[in-house]
C-alpha cells in the first residue's frame, strides 16, 4: 500500500464515503512513512520541486515521439500537464508503481538529473496513472481532492480518536513525520499543541429562509459582516501569533498587532483584519488590505499607506482556559471587559459593535445601508451559541446584501481545466466602452448549470470567429448578468477596472447585445471615488478577474 494506490482510490470516486474508507484503510495499513506522506500531501505540504516542467515535458515529447502542436492539443483536452505527459506515453498493460513513494521522493527529488532519470524509468515501467502521480510530485503540482474535514473523519476512524481532538491537533505549525504518526497511533499526544496553535474557526452559513423564521430578534446578536480577512490573534507565553482563516501564520505581516506584556496568562481572540485609516469612520477597500497580505516583509511605507486594524468578534481562550463551550453572550461580556486593557496596549485593536435593532424590519432597513459602510451585510449569532468548529448550520448566519451586478456580452471562450476539460466553460465578458467598442472586463466560469454549459458549448463551437490556441473569440451575441463582490481601479486592465469574484448570475437570453451596460456607467455606479487607485505591482489579488487573453 503506497501513496499511488491511495491516490488512485481517492481519485476514482467522488463519493465522500469512498474517500473516507480509502483513507482509513491507508492510515491503518500503510507504513508510517507512507501515512505521514499522505497526510502532508493532503494538507498541501509538498516536497520542494527540483525539476523544471519544461525539461520534463521535453523528455515526455521525446519518448512519445509526438510533435509539439499535438502535445498542445492533447493538453487542451486534459487541462493537466502531468496527466498529458503520462497519457501520451502510456504503455499497454504496464503495472502500477508499488514501491515506496517516500523513498522514490528521496531519490528523485534530489536534483534535476535525478528527476529526469526517475521519469525516464517511470515511463518505461509503470502505468500512466502512477506516472502522472510521480510527475505531479516532481513538479510540485500534486493536489489531493480531500478536504480537511474528510481527513479528520478518516483519522478519527482509523485511530479511534474523537474528531474534535484531531481537528485541534491539526491546527497550527505541525511537523507531520513518522514519529507524529507513531504518537497518533499510540493515542499519545499529551501536549501536542505548540503555544501558537489556533482553534478551528467557527463559520457562519448563508441564510436560506425568511429572516423572520429565526424567531425573536432578542435571541440574536447582530454584527456587521466586515469585508476583511478573518483571523485569530493569539497571546500565549507573552508572544503574539496571528493566524488567517486559511491557516496561514501572518504575524510578521501585521506588526501593529504586537504587544507589550499583558496581565493575562493567555488570550485568543477571533476577529477581522481590515485596512483602516486612523480617524476614518469606515475601513478602506479590501483592495488596500490585499497589498499588505501580498508582502512578506512590511515596510514603514506600507504601514503608512495601508494601516490595519483588528476588529475583535469573540474571545475563545483566556488565562489558559478554553471558553468555547460558554454561550456567546458570556464570551462577549468577557471580551468587552478586557478590551480597555488591550486597546491601551494595542491602539490598532477595536471591537465589533453589536447593533441594536428593535425588530427584523428595522434590521432590514439598516442592512440596506451596508454598502456605504463598506460591509457585506450582517452576521447573526445566537446568543446561546458555543464557539463550534467548522460550519454548523443554525447558530451563526451570514445575512448578506445583494451583490452588485452588470449585464455583459461574452466575447471569448476557453475550454475548462480539470473537471470540465473538453467543454468551453471559461468565458470572458465585455462591456461597451466610450467609443461603443467592446471592452473585456471579467472572466467568469461559474454559475451555469450543466445543461446550460452544454448548450453554450455547442453555441460557441458554431459561432467561433477566431482561435488563439485554446481561446476562441465568439460573435458578441450572448448576454449574461454577472455578479461581483467588489470593484477597483486597475491600470493593468484595458478596461481600467478589476472586479472581485465575478460570477454568472444568469444567462440573459432575453437581452440583445445592444442592452449591455456601459463601462462608464458601471464605474459611476459602483466605484466610489475615495478608493485610491492601486498601482500595478500591488495587484496580485485580482487573480480571479485577470484578463490574460
Amino acid at each position: 500500500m503506497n501513496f499511488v494506490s491511495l491516490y488512485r482510490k481517492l481519485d476514482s470516486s467522488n463519493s465522500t464515503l469512498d474517500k473516507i474508507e480509502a483513507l482509513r484503510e491507508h492510515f491503518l495499513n500503510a507504513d508510517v512513512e507512507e501515512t505521514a506522506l499522505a497526510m502532508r500531501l493532503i494538507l498541501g505540504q509538498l516536497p520542494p520541486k527540483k525539476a523544471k516542467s519544461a525539461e520534463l515535458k521535453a523528455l515526455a515529447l521525446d519518448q512519445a515521439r509526438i510533435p509539439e502542436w499535438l502535445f498542445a492539443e492533447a493538453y487542451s483536452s486534459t487541462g493537466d500537464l502531468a496527466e498529458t505527459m503520462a497519457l501520451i506515453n502510456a504503455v499497454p498493460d504496464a503495472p502500477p508503481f508499488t514501491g515506496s513513494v517516500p523513498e522514490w521522493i528521496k531519490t528523485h527529488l534530489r536534483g534535476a538529473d535525478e528527476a529526469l532519470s526517475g521519469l525516464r524509468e517511470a515511463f518505461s515501467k509503470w502505468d500512466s496513472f502512477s506516472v502522472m502521480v510521480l510527475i505531479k510530485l516532481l513538479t510540485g503540482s500534486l493536489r489531493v481532492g480531500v478536504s480537511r474535514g474528510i481527513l479528520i473523519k478518516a483519522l478519527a476512524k482509523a485511530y479511534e480518536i474523537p474528531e474534535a481532538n484531531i481537528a485541534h491537533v491539526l491546527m497550527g505549525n505541525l511537523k507531520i513525520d513518522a514519529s507524529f504518526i507513531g504518537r497518533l497511533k499510540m493515542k499519545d499526544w499529551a501536549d501536542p499543541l505548540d503555544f501558537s496553535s489556533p482553534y478551528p474557526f467557527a463559520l457562519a452559513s448563508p441564510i436560506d429562509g425568511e429572516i423572520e423564521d429565526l424567531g425573536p430578534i432578542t435571541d440574536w446578536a447582530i454584527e456587521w459582516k466586515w469585508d476583511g480577512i478573518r483571523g485569530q490573534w493569539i497571546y500565549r507565553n507573552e508572544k503574539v501569533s496571528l493566524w488567517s482563516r486559511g491557516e496561514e501564520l501572518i504575524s510578521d505581516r501585521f506588526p501593529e498587532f504586537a504587544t507589550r506584556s499583558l496581565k493575562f496568562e493567555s488570550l485568543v481572540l477571533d476577529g477581522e483584519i481590515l485596512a483602516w485609516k486612523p480617524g476614518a469612520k469606515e475601513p478602506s477597500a479590501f483592495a488596500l488590505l490585499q497589498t499588505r497580505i501580498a508582502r512578506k516583509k512590511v515596510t514603514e511605507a506600507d504601514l503608512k499607506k495601508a494601516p490595519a486594524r483588528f476588529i475583535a468578534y469573540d474571545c475563545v481562550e483566556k488565562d489558559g482556559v478554553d471558553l468555547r463551550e460558554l454561550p456567546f453572550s458570556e464570551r462577549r461580556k468577557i471580551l468587552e471587559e478586557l478590551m480597555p486593557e488591550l486597546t491601551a496596549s494595542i491602539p490598532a485593536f477595536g471591537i465589533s459593535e453589536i447593533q441594536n435593532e428593535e425588530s427584523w424590519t428595522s434590521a432590514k432597513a439598516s442592512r440596506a445601508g451596508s454598502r456605504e459602510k463598506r460591509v457585506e451585510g450582517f452576521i447573526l449569532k445566537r446568543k446561546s451559541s458555543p464557539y463550534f468548529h467548522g460550519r454548523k448550520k443554525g447558530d451563526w448566519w451570514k445575512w448578506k446584501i445583494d451583490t452588485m451586478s452588470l449585464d455583459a456580452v461574452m466575447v471569448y471562450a476557453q475550454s475548462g481545466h480539470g473537471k470540465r476539460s473538453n467543454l468551453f466553460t471559461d468565458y470572458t465578458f465585455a462591456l461597451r466602452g466610450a467609443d461603443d467598442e467592446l471592452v473585456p472586463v471579467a472572466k467568469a466560469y461559474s454559475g451555469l448549470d450543466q445543461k446550460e454549459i452544454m448548450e453554450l458549448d455547442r453555441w460557441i463551437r458554431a459561432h467561433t470567429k477566431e482561435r488563439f490556441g485554446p481561446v476562441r473569440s465568439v460573435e458578441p451575441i450572448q448576454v449574461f448578468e454577472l455578479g461581483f463582490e467588489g470593484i477597483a481601479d486597475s491600470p493593468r486592465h484595458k478596461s481600467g477596472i478589476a472586479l472581485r469574484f465575478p460570477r454568472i448570475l444568469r444567462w440573459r437570453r432575453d437581452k440583445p447585445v445592444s442592452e449591455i451596460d456601459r463601462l462608464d456607467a458601471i464605474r459611476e455606479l459602483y466605484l466610489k471615488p475615495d478608493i485610491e487607485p492601486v498601482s500595478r505591482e500591488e495587484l496580485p489579488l485580482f487573480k480571479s478577474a485577470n484578463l490574460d487573453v
Partner: protein
Amino acid sequence: MPEEAKPNQSELVVLAKDGLYCEAGGFYIDPWGSVETGIITHGHGDHAHIGSQHYYASRSSLGILKTRMGEETPITTLAYGKVIRLGETEVSLHPAGHILGSAQVRIAHAGQVWVVSGDYKRDPDPTCAPFEVVECDTFVTEATFASPVYHWPPIENVVREIHDWWMQNRARGQNSILCAYSLGKVQRVLAELMRFTNEPVHLHGSATRLVQVYRDEGVSMAPTIPVSELDKKEKLKGALIIAPPSASGSTWTRRFEPYEVGFASGWMQIRGNRRRKAYDRGFIVSDHADWPSLLRTIEETKAKRIIATHGSSDILARYVREEMGKEGITFETQFGEEDE
C-alpha cells in the same frame, strides 16, 4: 446534384448540403437532409436520420433502424460483403465493429476505391461483427477521439471494475446506477458482464426495446428487468440499474436511494471528466476508435488520402499530413458525439 458541391473529377464522395454525396452512384451516406437514396452506416441518431425516400443498410442493423426510424421506413438490407450496383458505382458494406449492424461503405468507380467508415472501433465487442480492414485509395474516417491521450484499457478490466463497484455498493446497502448510452454501450456492458455474473440487471425504459432487438439478433447478454415492470412500491436494494446519461440527477433516480452513479464513456479517460461531480465513478468504455486504433487503421487501409469527420477531425487530418506523409483533409459533417 446539389449546388454546394463542386467536386473535381476524382472526388467520388463530396460534402453536400444534405450529407456525404456520391454523384457517380446517385446516393448519400448518412444524409441529414431529405434525399432520394441514403446508405446508413449505423443506427445512432447523428447517422440515421428520417426523411429520405429510400435507404440501404446492413442486414443486422434492420431491427435497430426500424425501432428508431419507424416500422414504415423503406430500407433495403445488404449482407456484409455483398456487392451491388448503384448508378455507375459498385457498393458494398463491411463490418465497422462499432455497434450491432454498423457498417463501413466501400464504393468503387472508375478504378478508384473509397471507404467511408462511419463510426468504428478495433477493440473486441461480443455484440457485433469485428471491424474488417478494407483497402482503399481514400478513407473517410471518424475522429471522435483523435488525440494521443486516448487509448482504451481492456474492456474486461473495465467491466470487472463495474462489477466490483456494484458489489461494493451492495455491501453498503446502496444501489448502483450506471449511465450508458442506450444503443451499443448498454448492450456491450450487459454482454461483458456475463463473464462475472448471471444476476439480472435493471434497465431504464429507454434501453429495453433496443436490448430486445439485440436479443432477437442472437446476442447473449446478462438477464434484464425493465424498471417499468417493477411494482411502484418495490424497493430495490443492492441492484445495478442501467440508465441513459440524461437520467442522472433527474427525479427518476429518487426511488433508488441510496445509490451511487457511474458513467461509462470514452470521455472518462480524462481525469477531469471522471471527477465531474455529477458522477461518483467514471468507467472508460468507448465504442469508438482510440488514438492507436485510428493510426493503425489508417495505415492498414493503405489509403493515400484520409478525410476525417467528427470531433477532432482537424487534429487527425494535420497528423496524417505532417507525420504520416499522406493527404489529410476534413469534412465538416453534422456527425456528433451523442453516442458517447
